[in-house]
């Protein structure tokens, strides 16, 4: 017990319940498993799902990295990291390679992850079909019966109106050739990293009370048409700090005239790239 709280805040029975849900999720890649989520000391919508997943799997020997928008020092990432430091007293790090658990919001690290790492995603809306069908009862049927035409119709509509698919983040994927899954609001730039990733990918949606998983070495394909294949974003510019031309870049406005610079969103990657 640490300062009146159990290790990682949740009581053991709750952790057990969440771990069972995680195991079930791993057995059915991409399927959203309901779980009895608890209220956490951080607000719904601010990462409670990711926090509950991390809290259930973290152990005294783990090293935790928390990022938001790819950076270690954004306010919410720090807030969550401090929470775990308080209730676990475990090692934390900014180094992607050294972390055993990485909790992330809206980005996948640029550095390729390995088999002994777990990536925990914070998910606001786990249901990829929600915007097309507001009712939970109906979307559960669509997933169960593999009725995904509606999703493809959406892509068709975008191509017919705009000339291409316009979804730039939370781009839906087909997991293990079965369930259509929402990768969380990561940019589509990151989708290819999910395909056959060596690390375990866990997704926690606290407010909606769903957990899903993609086991290591699982097929993850972004939805598209053969004649309009999926494409990631590219930039003409390079990172102004490290010079990278193959990482996701953030746009920064540097003066009143609206002049812009571009820098790597993944701060740790940028730092390491600069050193080499």
């Amino acid at each position: 017990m640490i300062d009146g709280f159990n290790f990682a805040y949740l009581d053991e029975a709750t952790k057990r319940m969440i771990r069972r849900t995680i195991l079930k999720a791993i057995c059915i890649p991409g399927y959203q498993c309901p779980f009895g989520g608890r209220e956490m000391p951080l607000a719904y919508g601010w990462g409670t799902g990711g926090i509950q997943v991390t809290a259930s799997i973290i152990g005294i020997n783990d090293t935790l990295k928390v990022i938001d928008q790819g950076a270690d020092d954004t306010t919410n990432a720090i807030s969550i990291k401090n929470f775990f430091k308080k209730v676990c007293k475990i090692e934390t790090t900014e180094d992607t390679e050294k972390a055993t658990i990485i909790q992330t919001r809206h980005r996948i690290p640029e550095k390729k992850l390995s088999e002994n790492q777990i990536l925990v995603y914070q998910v606001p809306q786990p249901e990829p079909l929600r915007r097309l069908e507001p009712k939970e009862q109906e979307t559960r049927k669509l997933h169960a019966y593999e009725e995904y035409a509606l999703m493809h119709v959406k892509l068709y509509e975008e191509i017919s109106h705009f000339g291409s698919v316009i979804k730039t983040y939370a781009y839906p994927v087909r997991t293990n050739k079965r369930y259509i899954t929402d990768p969380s609001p990561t940019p589509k730039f990151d989708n290819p990293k999910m395909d056959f990733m060596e690390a375990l990918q866990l997704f926690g949606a606290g407010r909606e009370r769903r957990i899903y998983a993609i086991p290591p070495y699982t097929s993850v394909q972004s939805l598209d048409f053969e004649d309009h294949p999926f494409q990631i974003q590219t930039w003409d510019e390079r990172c102004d700090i490290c010079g990278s031309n193959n990482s996701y870049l953030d746009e920064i406005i540097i003066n009143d005239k609206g002049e812009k610079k571009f820098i790597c969103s993944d701060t740790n990657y940028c730092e390491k790239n600069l050193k080499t």
Partner: protein
Amino acid sequence: MYVAVKGGEKAIKSSIELLEQKRKHISSNQDIKISQLIEQLSFAVDRVVSEGSLYDKNLSALSIKQAQGDLVEAIFILRAYRTTLERFSYSVPIDTSSMTLKRRISATYKDIPGGQILGPTFDYTHRLLDFSLLNGKETSNKKNTPTSNDNVFFPRVMEFLNNEGLMEKEIEKLKSKPFDITREPMKFPASRDQWLQILSRSDEGFLLGLSYSAIRGFGSKGTHPFVGEIRYGFVEVKIYPEELGFEICVGEIEVSECEMVDQFEGSKKIAPQFTRGYGLTFGYNERKAMSISIIDRALKSEEYGEEIKFPIQDQEFVLYHSDNVEAQGFVSHLKLPHYVDFQGELNLIRELRKKILKENKDD
């Protein structure tokens, strides 16, 4: 070369300090006591008890003090605390028929056995600002609100309608264990036990707005409910330990209860009956109990084969959006950095515009 801005950790620390400073008590130099909140701002304390879903007036008052009066924030604090508490037993269902009444009224009958007891209510006050409260009012020594006499019998008004066969019967007994929304995620179609639990701790404002919409016309045709009975008072909380083999009382809580009578159903062959709605909350939250009873009736629309046309009849709409801990979290999460997703949108919109503007120029 661009130098990245750092310092998120320091910024957070400063922001928390500033919040603490906001709670300065310069003018009075007096720290608010928890007991003062419980006594003088009892409705705020009761609201937080109800929506925090934890019956403990001291903890409720403490969260209000910590939240500096932001009740939705206080409710969040109390709910989060609730997560850490161990559950060691279940109570026997409370019996509101044997309530020690502070207030009991009915709109369906002029007079009822036991009488109409107005109790402590704002209903008949004139809403004129009382400036004498600015400098502290002299309070009389008589503190306790009179409660009902044990020798007087207060039968339930709904029973009269029931006995005449005019009222649809309430569920006698649940077929299985009651749903537990604090342990399991919501399931749809929702059962009545599930939705009554959710509504009991839902945001008062949302429920008020919904029930208002229904009685104004955005509800099943002819929604004009009548208050069958409203009760407010103390009920005993009892548990049944197996080792003892009998019930023991472990305490008392205040609850507010409302039973609504609504339009009758029927057809050529089935005799018409009044339908009913039920609402129950912790503490003195009468307006909310009334709203819940209207919504309870509306959520039964599907069961009665009524056309689902309005938000109040839609289970998923009502139950997914009525919890303010969830709602405030998600709405305020929009403040979090979203610049990575936004970057994608920026790139896209520039590209699309480039294409169209170029086409227009070529024409």
